[in-house]
């Protein structure tokens, strides 16, 4: 039997279909307790219900807003601090230990604190997404700038370029490349921050729905939500990947 690599997706799809059928069959045969393990059709029904009644939209909106605002703020602040720290050594002395500490801890543990500081509204979710993203971007930019190719710097200097030219021709494109290279990680973190923030305390959002489903022991709804969040993040990954490909077409 031969396995043509071109047909990998067919085999993956077939395996997935078989799994679904077995799962569904086991549910029908009464081998699965629906309280813990709903069947695929039950999950699908919960999924359709979410969209059919339109209840999902305000929650999606809340999560997207928190994640994207946190992402944008995290990128801007992460780049700014990273550039400052790389160019001004005293700033690095102050910032680096703080960032290392923030990087070492699972930053989602800050979620309850942010709820106290910023309330159960959008603020605490944005803050969590922001802190998750900004630390990653900071290190990307900080280490990146210090590793800029000396040869490129010398080249610009021997061609008579000024410090401004150096910034425009070498440092900015390098920073853009590193940030774009880490964009997918940042997007993942932004949604993690938003959903976990909502999970801890909120009145809206996908994370809030999850915690609601948990409190009502609604496993089907939970799984539908997990699938939905996966789909959402995959779509955004796709967009980030396109952006990366377009802007880094030289690499």
């Amino acid at each position, binding site marked *: 039997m031969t396995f043509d690599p071109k047909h990998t997706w067919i085999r993956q799809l077939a395996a997935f279909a078989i799994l679904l059928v077995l799962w569904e069959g086991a549910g029908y045969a009464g081998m699965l307790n629906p309280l813990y393990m709903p069947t695929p059709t039950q999950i699908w029904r919960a999924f359709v219900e979410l969209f059919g009644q339109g209840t999902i939209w305000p929650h999606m909106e809340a999560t997207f807003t928190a994640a994207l605002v946190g992402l944008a703020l995290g990128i801007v602040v992460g780049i700014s601090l990273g550039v400052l720290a790389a160019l001004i050594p005293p700033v690095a002395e102050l910032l680096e230990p703080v960032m290392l500490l923030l990087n070492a801890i699972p930053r989602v543990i800050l979620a309850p604190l942010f709820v106290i500081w910023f309330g159960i509204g959008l603020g605490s979710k944005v803050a969590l997404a922001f802190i998750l993203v900004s630390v990653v971007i900071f290190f990307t930019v900080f280490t990146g700038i210090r590793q800029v190719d000396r040869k490129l710097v010398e080249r610009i200097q021997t061609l008579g370029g000024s410090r401004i*030219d150096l910034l425009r021709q070498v440092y900015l494109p390098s920073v853009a490349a590193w940030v774009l290279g880490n964009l997918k990680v940042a997007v993942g973190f932004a949604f993690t921050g938003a959903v976990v923030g909502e999970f801890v305390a909120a009145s809206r959002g996908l994370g809030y729905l999850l915690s609601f489903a948990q409190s009502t022991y609604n496993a089907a709804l939970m799984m539908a939500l997990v699938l939905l969040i996966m789909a959402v993040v995959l779509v955004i990954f796709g967009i980030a990947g396109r952006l990366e490909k377009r802007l880094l077409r*030289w690499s």
Partner: protein
Amino acid sequence: MRLQKQLAGTVTSEFPQSDIGILFQDDALLPWRTARENVALGLGFRGMDKQRALEAADEWLARFGLAGFEDRYPRRLSGGQRKRVAIAQAMALKPKLLLMDEPFASLDAIVRARISQEVVELVEREKISVLLVTHDLEEAIALSDAVYLLSQGPRARVTERYNVPIPRPRDLVRAKSHPAFAPLLQKLWSDLLREVDMSAGAEAVERTARAAA
């Protein structure tokens, strides 16, 4: 332009900084700029209008046989093509003095022969002075009007000067069959071996002093 602070003494030059071009062995092109944009860089730094700088860059690329490659990013150029872009980048600034540190060392033999010949012709036509540092004695003789032997570092100094009586314009292949070539090469070798022990690696400095013309 200054890459390093002088440790002692004074640095004098007949040329203003803007007349000096530099080519290193592993010159890096900006990977995020196309061949055209890379060549236009220096012109832009000098305040040339962007559109005009790009047009001038296209002309330089065409002179080095890179017409049609203007929009390629360095990643999509071969080693020899990248070297040509780097040379075009330096030449576009119309230097009067060109400092080269083993600029052809990273190229394979055939590409290297072609590019050296192109550079020789350009340098002869544009009357550019060249100071070339190389370990390759044949290259040193074939390219230059005078060869200086540099003693082993640290504190390396010029220990000898040799005139190269091969006439210009030069064809690098034919230069090697010039009657003066083999004797000079032999002399250089023996002096060099006396100067430094083999293991440490030798360095010869040579100079193409076409400038005076």
